[in-house]
């Protein structure tokens, strides 16, 4: 399956008696679009939160590109190329789209500590921001305030901020929720393109099974904090355990 | 040595009980409304001035002042909650804090306008004047009365919160606002009620302070609110049990501090506050 980007070893996380990750072991590979599926409460969002550093693991190890990041703070993981978007829109509401994207780009280029130079003078930052805005099709709204965007555009911006940090591995938490078909196809197209060039490896949490099966190379099914299925979309469709706890509900 | 120790202890406890009366309302209001009210000290001051005003108007009966003063203050509290605070619940923290701070400025000057800027002497209390001999030294009866009032209020609050329907509602909304909304609690009414009650408690403290402090100043509100802040921080924001123990600690710390190390007293108290915030922000006495 190629070079592994992220390795998870014996990962555990529980909230009281609710187990959201139980002895998880898996790896994520470069260039392989992976979807994580599971019924509500299967531990998908919690898993992303633990892997990206928003929550601490109870035990176990997380290795990213050959370095252990289990106890690294969020911003260090991001610097190493571990990014994420959020399920609920989580942008810089009162800033313009340009500024929204400039923040991760400044961090990426190591220019964020400059107190004297004007942002307008940092050409490389401006160019990178405009490139990302073009990718998601929001360039014409660059100087609008984020708060005033439509819901679909906000979702695009949500993904764009994550992309702007130039991640190697990017977790997208329900990226297409609440998008109209046009926006949805644009975001999926962007994902495919970036994935093909090998720049970004995507891991997607998604409820829409059409998207999961058409987009992913690999699907991981979670149930009660355990992996109950892991393989190609076809293998997952055939997996009896997955059908029973998850797909079964929809197929039936 | 021993007798002075006993007396320093007693003085500390009675000072702590005044702080407790302010801190209990402050922490109750914070627990339910999530607003830290700078003006809570002003209720203490208003309670003292109004008690004194009633006392003078009604021919010197302290008990009548103690009854009426705090009642008037709780009405003031209602007006403040209903017509001002309610407008800022949805705003960020600085706006909420500053609104209550603006009220401090307004209350201070209103009191100065009505009663004058100078200090007013205060009277003895019928039935509780004089002093008793404890460990070989005289100790005012009134201070013993205060030391008794504090725990009584604590017990009363405990009963109210744990044993009554109202108390359960208050506790439920303090721990989970969404849940309270979903089971149909009348939240605006609850907020007004809790705020009025908190104001009343603080004003009772102020009224009781009239014979204790000997003179009234507009600065008494600011002085006690800072102590109360320290107390609710040490006890854990929103915890009544913590506030009670915190009041005792701060009261004792200041009386021992004043007696034995006057240089370090204030520094130590605020140092304790900072230390708790840094290493145990859930409060000193929180479980787990």
């Amino acid at each position: 399956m190629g070079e592994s980007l992220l390795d998870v070893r014996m990962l555990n996380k529980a909230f009281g008696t609710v187990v959201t990750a139980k002895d998880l072991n898996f790896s994520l590979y470069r260039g392989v679009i992976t979807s994580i599926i599971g019924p509500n409460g299967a531990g998908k969002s919690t898993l992303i939160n633990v892997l990206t550093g928003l929550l601490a693991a109870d035990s176990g190890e997380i290795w990213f590109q050959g370095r252990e990041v289990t106890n690294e703070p969020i911003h260090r993981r991001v610097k190493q190329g571990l990014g994420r978007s959020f399920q609920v829109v989580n942008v810089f509401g009162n800033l313009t789209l340009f500024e929204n994207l400039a923040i991760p780009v400044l961090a990426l280029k190591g220019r964020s500590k400059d107190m004297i130079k004007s942002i307008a003078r940092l050409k490389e930052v401006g160019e990178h921001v405009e490139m990302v805005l073009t990718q998601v099709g929001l360039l014409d709204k660059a100087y609008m305030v984020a708060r005033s965007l439509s819901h679909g555009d906000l979702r695009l911006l949500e993904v764009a901020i994550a992309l702007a940090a130039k991640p190697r591995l990017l977790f997208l938490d329900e990226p297409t929720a609440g998008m109209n078909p046009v926006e949805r196809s644009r975001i999926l197209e962007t994902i495919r393109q970036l994935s093909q060039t090998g720049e970004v490896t995507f891991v997607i949490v998604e409820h829409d099974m059409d998207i999961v099966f058409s987009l992913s190379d690999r699907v991981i099914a979670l149930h009660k904090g355990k992996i109950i299925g892991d393989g190609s979309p076809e293998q997952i469709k055939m997996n009896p355990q997955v059908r029973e706890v998850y797909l079964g509900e929809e197929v039936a | 040595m021993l007798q002075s120790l006993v007396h320093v202890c007693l003085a500390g406890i009675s000072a702590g009980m005044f702080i407790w009366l302010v801190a209990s309302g402050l922490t109750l209001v914070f627990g339910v409304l999530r607003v830290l009210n700078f003006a809570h000290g002003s209720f203490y001051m208003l309670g003292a001035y109004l008690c004194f005003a009633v006392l003078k108007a009604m021919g010197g009966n302290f008990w009548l002042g103690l009854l009426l003063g705090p009642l008037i203050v709780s009405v003031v509290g209602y007006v403040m909650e209903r017509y001002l605070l309610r407008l800022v619940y949805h705003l960020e923290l600085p706006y909420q804090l500053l609104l209550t701070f603006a009220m401090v400025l307004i209350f201070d000057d209103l009191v100065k306008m009505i009663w004058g800027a100078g200090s007013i002497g205060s009277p003895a209390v019928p039935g509780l004047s004089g002093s008793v001999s404890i460990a070989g030294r005289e100790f005012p009866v009134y201070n013993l009365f205060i030391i008794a009032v504090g725990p009584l209020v604590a017990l009363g609050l405990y009963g109210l919160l744990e044993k009554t329907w109202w108390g359960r509602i208050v506790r439920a909304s303090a721990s989970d606002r969404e849940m309270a909304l979903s089971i149909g609690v009348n939240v605006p009414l609850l907020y007004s009620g809790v705020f009025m009650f908190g104001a009343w408690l603080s004003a009772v403290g102020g009224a009781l302070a009239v014979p204790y402090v000997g003179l009234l100043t507009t600065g008494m509100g600011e002085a006690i609110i800072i102590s109360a802040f320290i107390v609710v921080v040490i006890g854990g924001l929103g915890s009544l049990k913590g506030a009670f123990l915190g009041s005792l600690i701060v009261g004792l710390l200041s009386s021992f501090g004043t007696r034995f190390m006057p240089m370090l007293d204030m520094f130590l108290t605020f140092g304790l506050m900072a230390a708790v915030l840094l290493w145990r922000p859930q409060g000193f006495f929180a479980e787990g």
Partner: protein
Amino acid sequence: MNQYWKYFLMLGCLGALVGIGFVSGPFVLYLATRIMILSIFALGYNLLLGRTGLLSFGHAAFFATGAYGLAITSIHISAHPLLGILIGVAAAALLSLCIGFFCVRHTEIYFAMLTLAFGMMVFALIWNLRSITGGDDGLYGISRTAISLGIVKIPIRNDYQFYFFVLFFFMVSVFLINRIYSSPFGLVLAGIRENHIRAEFSGLSVKAYRLGVFTVSGAFAGLAGSLSALLESNVAPFSAHWTHSAEPVLVSLIGGLQTFSGPVVGSVIFVALREVLQRFTYNWMLWFGVLLLAIIIGFRGGVVGSISEAFRRYSRP
């Protein structure tokens, strides 16, 4: 408002300030000097409050550190004002770095309470260390000796000379803080205010930036403090008290938290209004309270924010 208007306005203000220095009487001059000092304090402070969204009740401690730093230098080491200011600002920056290191672990109410606690610890030290700080008397007799720069000596003893001395620092502060607002660092601060989790996920150590801005604002508070020590020729312990920390908060709020010039406009209104109110009534605090209420409830943009909002509406076809 476009760029040219802004420069035009700034030049106008500068012209007016220079004009005041030449033609006004001693009382107006004194008020204008105080306004500029308060502006420096509030401009720096608003980097923290308006820009980063952190409410500190401890900045009076840094103001006082600047003031006492200058006073102690002036009395014991050298009366050279620039050296005093340098030491005052450095001490304030160092102290705010140390205090900030602990405070930035928390946000919201816990941050406000921590800054209050640390600020009052500084107040307690100043109050109690009589032999160094003069205790409740403060320190007296700080002289405004001439600034000797090699062969040149610039006198600042009389009020007009000192006015221009403060004007110089005011302009430097305005320039620096304006740069910070349009700098990457300034944008990161706004990002932290808007959404600190997203800022962290943008690859930024939020705590480090909070500490950075805390220290910068502490340094400006120190500058304001040391200038005020020179103005009043004494320092008082209550300049470290938390109630003094409320001053830059009020000023920024009156002028407009989300604007660059808000703290300056707020300072003008605060000082001028206070003088006027004190003429007519002893109860100026009451009116400030009412003004604050009105701003919090009705005009959260402050004076500058509300006016520019009205301007925008008016100019829109």
